[in-house]
């Protein structure tokens, strides 16, 4: 497996930090090396947040990256900022539930996922990040679904473990959406 530098960005409250942590932890579960680096400015719900995840077969030297190989943009400002920095040939995942414009690049692959609508169908709008995670895992194969489930189990413990099935279902539905595309 080659090196991956992934940027996940959106509004605070959309769960972008958790998405990154799940990807990083799933990679480690699979025996790969990974770092998770958050932006930690004075952020709040509704502000912008992002994190950078590096996944590699070798120990990760720099957790800071120049241009990502994959970008997950959960809102329009994130798509403009990080989609523009994406490597040529990279993959841009866009939350098409809230982003209604296109990025002017023809050298990248763009995967649009209406995560809010799918999350509503699953039964809880708050799992839209897990829908996107499912789509990301299905398309890139950087980590496997089983490792993602395992990582979710580490994150959702105690009273939150009741939410595990809901989150698994959201991941599954995200993957299903991009398979049917």
């Amino acid at each position: 497996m080659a090196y991956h530098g992934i940027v996940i960005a959106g509004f605070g409250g959309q769960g972008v930090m958790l998405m990154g942590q799940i990807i990083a932890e799933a990679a480690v579960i699979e025996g790969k090396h990974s770092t998770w680096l958050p932006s930690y400015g004075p952020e709040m719900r509704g502000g912008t947040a992002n994190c950078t995840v590096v996944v590699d077969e070798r120990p990760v030297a720099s957790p800071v990256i120049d241009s990502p190989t994959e970008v997950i943009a959960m809102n329009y400002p994130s798509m403009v900022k990080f989609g523009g920095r994406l490597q040529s040939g990279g993959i841009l995942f866009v939350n098409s539930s809230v982003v209604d414009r296109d990025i002017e690049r023809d050298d990248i692959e763009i995967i649009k996922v209406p995560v809010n609508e799918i999350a509503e169908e699953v039964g809880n709008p708050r799992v839209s990040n897990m829908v996107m995670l499912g789509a990301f895992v299905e398309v890139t194969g950087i980590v496997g679904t089983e490792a993602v489930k395992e990582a979710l189990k580490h994150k959702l413990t105690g009273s939150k473990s009741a939410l595990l099935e809901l989150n698994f279902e959201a991941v599954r539905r995200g993957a299903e959406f991009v398979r049917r595309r």
Partner: protein
Amino acid sequence: MKKLMMKGNEAIAEAAIRAGCRLYFGYPITPQSEIAEYMSRRLPEVGGTFLQTESEVATVNMVYGAACTGKRVMTSTSSPGFSLMQEGISYIAGAELPCVFVNVVRGGPGLGDIQPAQSDYFQATKGGGHGDYRLLVLAPSTLQEAIELTMLAFDLADKYRNPALILADGMIGQMMEPVELPPMRDLSTLPDHSSWALTGAEGRAPRKVTSFNIDPYGLEEMNKRYQEKYRRVEREEQRWEEYKTENAEYLLVGYGTMGRILKSVADRLEEEGLAVGVFRPISLWPFPDRRLKELSEKVRFVFTVEMSSGQMVEDVRLAVDGRIPVHFYGRMGGVVPTPEEVIRAFKKLL
């Protein structure tokens, strides 16, 4: 052993507990507040004491008091908070007390910002408070190393009866990566400080632990003792890592976060056919000057990169002593240089 994903601040806190630290005093400040948060939850579980103080000035004096008892004690803070602690640190160094400080550095000067920086190097290594004293300063570049160096900091502090400092930055504090935790230290194996510690004078003569001596000749003798200790530390405790230095024609020098980014720089330059090595000081004081001097006799030039206007580069220049050019690139204010921009800066020198 099982690998865990941990945040840097939490890894440092857990490492301190596993090193036998049962006393923590602190005041919250970004980007290290997770250390205090973690300690507040974890210390009561292991029979320790967590205390949130009213200020960093109170913190450092509580650390001073606790260190007088010979118990392992720690505090953590970030740049402005570390400035506030300097008076107390000078007293602790003068009283020759073991304890551990953590400074998760952020952009300065003044209130600055909360992003990762390396602009507290002078303060950490040259004595931020008054008087002729030194801190043992260790700079981790990965979270696994942050754990190892936190454990080592307690051991070195005990060995030399001197305060030790973990100099990290906001990136080390905030990032996550897999770590393996060492086993919990058996408290009965910790160094014996009963010959000097203040433990209550029952059954023995009262003792005094102080940095004070009104007689200049007496104070000079105390200073001679400190200096003798510092020379021993300089001889025995220089630590560094070398990466691809074997046949290097050029040498990159950086510590902490910058040190690991420079490894990516060296890898990419190698792909372009350039033989570039990395020298990463782990102990910032004592600065690993002997090995750097040796390496400087084998390369064309040294390129130092820091997240500051250029502080460690002064120690690099002292070690290299004019034999070859020492170039510098830095970003300030909490900006972390990317590998690509360091490569661009490096290529301008060729």
